């Protein structure tokens, strides 16, 4: 296995982006940030991979148009996944493992506000017996939250504690579209929205884009004093049918964690678009009480589709670069109710 590190990270997140869903306008400055952080130009990048979905904003082949932001004469080695940035990074990591490339810039973008996001996502469900009912993301998360409440695994107070900590931490995050903690009591006094969920239990609809630069041993040290070395990268998926899943759990997250060495993790950035899902993830990953969760504010503060998982990896990597942690975890999720999960453990030691 080649040692590969995260050496660059840039993001733009906003409640509403008023430009084209190809997001070229957002990607150009993101790439400029990555070039500045590494001192590289596009010619130094051996592999490119993007994550996006045309369903989000109704623009066909938006990922093809997005390639304009790279500038592709002469041509570049490029790929695309209809998945979160974290999975685009997984493909790039594999590419580097094959020896075909030493460096990669992966990016993702999405304009969720162009449609009704919670409705659009019904198209990722089982198409015969679920999609025709248009079960929205919030309702499915509500079914999951109540299952855990009824079983006594968590309660509304525990969910409010997650939201309050996230919104408080988000005050320091310039990209958070929702921020400002108050108190658990104040949050619990707010009205129910999708009973058992209050609005602060649900991630805000967010537009945005993000990019990560990864590089193999040798190239990584050229450009980064303390590269965030990827110690493990693992992902699993649970069945599509909700009936055969125990919604209180996320076996795929548990397996992704079990395939990683979580000893000594100090900071975990967890992609939990609903407050109770952070509780499920902490339990499935077996994170100790002293692990600092989501110092960025997490997905409850901003959750740009297709970037938010990769942003967790970028935020975790920054903890290594700055020297504030030696071992961190970035997590990404996809699908309804924590169906698919990726765990990336990074360390300061090569």
């Amino acid at each position: 296995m080649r040692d590969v590190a995260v050496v660059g990270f840039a993001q733009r997140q906003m409640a509403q982006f008023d430009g084209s869903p190809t997001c070229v306008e957002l990607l150009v400055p993101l790439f400029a940030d990555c070039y500045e952080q590494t001192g590289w130009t596009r010619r130094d990048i051996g592999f490119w991979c993007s994550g996006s979905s045309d369903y989000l904003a109704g623009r066909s082949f938006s990922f093809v148009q997005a390639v304009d932001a790279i500038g592709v004469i002469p041509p570049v080695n490029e790929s695309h996944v209809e998945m979160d940035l974290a999975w685009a990074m997984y493909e790039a990591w594999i590419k580097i493992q094959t020896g075909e490339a030493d460096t990669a810039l992966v990016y993702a973008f999405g304009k969720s506000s162009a449609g009704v996001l919670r409705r659009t996502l019904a198209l990722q469900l089982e198409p015969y017996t679920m999609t025709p009912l248009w079960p929205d993301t919030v309702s499915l998360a509500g079914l999951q939250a109540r299952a855990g409440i009824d079983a006594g695994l968590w309660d509304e107070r525990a969910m409010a504690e997650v939201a309050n900590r996230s919104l408080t931490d988000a005050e320091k995050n310039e990209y958070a579209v929702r921020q400002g903690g108050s108190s658990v009591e104040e949050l619990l006094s707010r009205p129910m929205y999708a009973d058992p969920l209050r609005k602060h239990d649900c991630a805000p609809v967010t537009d945005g884009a993000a990019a990560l630069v990864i590089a193999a041993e040798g190239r990584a040290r050229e450009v980064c004093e303390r590269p965030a070395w990827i110690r493990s990268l693992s992902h699993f998926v649970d069945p599509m049918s909700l009936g055969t899943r125990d919604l209180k759990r996320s076996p795929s997250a548990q397996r992704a964690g079990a395939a990683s060495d979580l000893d000594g993790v100090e900071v975990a950035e967890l992609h939990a678009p609903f407050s109770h899902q952070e509780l499920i993830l902490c339990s499935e990953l077996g994170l100790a009480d002293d692990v600092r969760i989501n110092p960025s504010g997490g997905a409850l503060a901003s959750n740009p589709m297709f970037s938010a998982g990769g942003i967790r990896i970028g935020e975790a990597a920054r903890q290594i670069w700055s020297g504030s942690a030696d071992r961190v975890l970035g997590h990404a999720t996809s699908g309804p109710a924590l169906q698919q999960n990726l765990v990336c453990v990074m360390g300061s030691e090569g």
Partner: protein
Amino acid sequence: MPRTLSAPVTVAFDYTRSTGPVLGRFLSGLRDGVVVGGRTSEGKVVVPPPEFDPVTHAAVDDFVEVADTGTVTSWSWVPEPVKGQPFERPFAFALVTLDGADAPLLHALDVPSPDDVTTGVRVRIRWRAERVGAITDIECFEPAVAEVRGAPATSLEAAAASARSETPEVSRLASLAPQPPAVTGIVVPIELDYLYAASPEESLFYTSLSEGKLVGQRCPTCGKVYIPPRSACQADGTPTAEEVELPDTGTVTTFCIVNVPFLGQRITPPYVSAYVLLDGADIAFLHLILDIAAEEVRMGMRVKAVWKPKDQWGTTIENISHFAPTGEPDADYETYRVHL
């Protein structure tokens, strides 16, 4: 004035899907007013039946009829239903384990408020009167009669009565008539509504068109002029900032003769769709070539825009009705060779 132009757009498609034997059995059952589950290798009855066993991965072929009554195992209130959901008014999505099943089915539960549902409540299926073999043959779940307090008894009693009167007739017909054919396919209409925004550069292009002007942008790195302008030069990745107004004359680089009729076609075939390279531009764009017989159109032909009357202009490329020959000598191949 907003920074960019935008317009509503709806994307729609009717997906036709074959069901296969397992989902076909389930959907045939719904059409006939019966819920069919599948027994897994662990002995559990799952509704809808999974096509393959979750543990052994063998095809599921042990089907079990379950009741149309059951128990709510979880629910979530839907305060603001979205288009296509079972109700336009607030309702609950519920997981319901039907009597005889071991795993829950997701569907709507019709109750007036979240105060009218708790986990563990008994419910029954409200069947749609006309059933076609789809999950929507189940209109929703509703509280089971005996356990509803203060519900309008009349409608529930009428439903129960109609179910009773239906049952003997269905079984009598079933014994006399051949079984209706099994469901083998479904049609799922998908419709998504968006607010589609143009980029600032595209907005400039379309706004200029509404003033009868063709405006592109020049790449500061390679000097190429793009029309319509793009957010970044596709060769260099550099944002194209400098605006360049172009004339409405140009050269046909390549073209095709459209002979095939299609839905929504506005011109009777044969007609010509061509790439027109405007004078001063480095990228050609697609438009119609009319006012000339299709077989006379050629590469290198010089053309000029024919604009619609000004009172019909909007922020659209359709302000130009088509391009027509100028009558000038054809352009040298060398002048457009690199633009093919």
